[in-house]
């Protein structure tokens, strides 16, 4: 329950937490599912002057209805420009733009490197996921990215099964040294809280935990050592945030569930 007596779900808290990280004027790259919701929330509630665009080539659509995929025809209406993948990635990596990508993943490590490819042997995997799509490109080229995923021990791992998208690589200045001149993960938003990365070591630390979530629960669900000492309790969603999310962003509860 928030301070006004409205109950809210984990997914709602996640979407609103992600939206709060966005500033007016940011150029937002949205993926499928939860990250789509986060970008819509940012645009509708927290940063109305931000611009949402899609790797498929739809730039700044009206987004009257929630798209169910990045190729949904809803990303093609009311845009400033309908283009294609190559044009979209020229926006992602544009040196003048503050592009922030929302990305999902199946696994993450403490430096924010992501796996969305497979678990087990690459050529004969135990579980196969969809693959990079544009995630590796956005993680390599955008000004920064925000990860949106469920907080579970098997997903927050010491070592990834497959590194699909580059985070801070091995920490410190390893990303710049590898030839990636900008970018990197800025935050990880989960159903339990918000993680950020240390300026120097680039290791993940807990920045906020949601009301009602204990630090023990977070460390139990994290498969590596994480600094919890800097964490503060997150502000619950306001009535306004919840009502816009429910009535305008996802009224059919396609992603909210």
């Amino acid at each position: 329950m928030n301070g006004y007596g409205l109950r809210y779900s984990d997914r709602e808290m996640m979407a609103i937490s992600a939206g709060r990280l966005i500033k007016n004027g940011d150029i937002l790259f949205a993926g499928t599912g939860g990250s789509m919701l986060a970008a819509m929330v940012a645009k509708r509630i927290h940063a109305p002057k931000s611009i949402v665009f899609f790797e498929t080539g739809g730039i700044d659509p009206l987004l009257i209805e929630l798209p169910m995929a990045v190729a949904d025809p809803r990303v093609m209406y009311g845009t400033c420009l309908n283009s294609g993948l190559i044009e979209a990635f020229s926006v992602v990596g544009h040196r003048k733009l503050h592009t922030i990508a929302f990305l999902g993943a199946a696994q993450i490590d403490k430096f924010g490197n992501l796996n969305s490819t497979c678990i087990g042997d690459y050529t004969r995997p135990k579980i196969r996921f969809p693959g990079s799509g544009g995630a590796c490109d956005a993680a390599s080229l955008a000004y920064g990215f925000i990860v949106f995923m469920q907080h579970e021990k098997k997903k927050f791992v010491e070592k990834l099964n497959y590194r699909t998208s580059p985070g801070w690589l091995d920490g410190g200045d390893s990303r710049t040294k590898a030839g990636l001149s900008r970018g990197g993960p800025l935050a990880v938003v989960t159903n339990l809280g918000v993680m950020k990365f240390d300026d120097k070591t680039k290791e993940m630390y807990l920045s906020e935990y949601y009301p009602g979530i204990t630090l023990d629960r977070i460390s139990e669900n994290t498969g590596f050592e994480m600094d919890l000492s800097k964490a503060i309790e997150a502000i619950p969603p306001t009535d306004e945030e919840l009502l816009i999310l429910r009535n305008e962003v996802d009224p059919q509860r396609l992603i909210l569930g």
Partner: protein
Amino acid sequence: MDDTEIKDKLMSPAEAVKRFIKNGAQIAIGGFTINRNPMGLVYEIARQGIRDLHLVCHSNGQGLDVLVGAGCVRRIELAYAGNGRFAPTCIRFRKAVEKGEILLEDYSNYQMSLRFLAGSLGIPFIPTKSGLETDLLKRTGFSPEVRKERKIAKEKFFKIQNPFNGKEDPVVLLPALNPDVALLHTQYVGEDGTVRMKGLTFADIEQAKSAEVVIVSCEEILPREFIRKDPDQNSLPPFLVDAIVKLPYGAHPTACFYFYDYDVTHLNLYKEAAKDNQHFHQYLDEWVFGVSRHEEYLEKVGLSNLAKIKADPVMGYAPGLDRR
């Protein structure tokens, strides 16, 4: 209608597939996940029992999954196999990969688009900064033996130092793609053979320009004067197109901007069927093998379903469509 200019190119889906797609061909299909997949042509490939295809794609969804499920595919180079909320990972694709039934190599969307672009420009490779220090570069799915076959690059990637700035600055080189056949579905083709794509073009234009043969299916064929009156809107010149197939609703159940939305009912039905081998074969028998012509398929989908997904002429999709 005066379509005499393209009379040699106009053909049925059966004829286009029969003439241009051989067993073992490397093909690129257009569209992206749930949008503008050339489904009418995909169904025809399955119906004709084409085998051992090598699929090259960025993010194909429904088209890829049907081809894999129908046993037409031997190898794939791809960035993504998903169908939005209908299948976070394409279901038949996932089963086939986990069972080791297809050979696979992963790239990213930008990388695959650049590979088609390189192929379309006639250059052998193209550089990018995307993918440095990832397993996309490190893990290969094709053996050295497979790499000796036609149309397969000898290396998956190559990393070099930028030769222009004289310091340490790694760059990834990607091999160009020139598939045997590109198949795409578009809204309009002119009587002169000019192709017009509405909405997002994805990498369809690069795919078509990189391919040896281009098959285009379309919703409508427009008068020559009309398509040449506003050429800024056009996507491909007539001389790059080898076969034109008039196929209304040819992308169903995926969407076609300004014509129809994705068919939620059908994609949900597919999702349920795809989970189980027996149900999936029943699905193929009913919707693909048991249907001899595209018109018959549309009759099965039914007018009321087609009416539900009819696009609003301004918005290009079906506003308010129940998408649960």
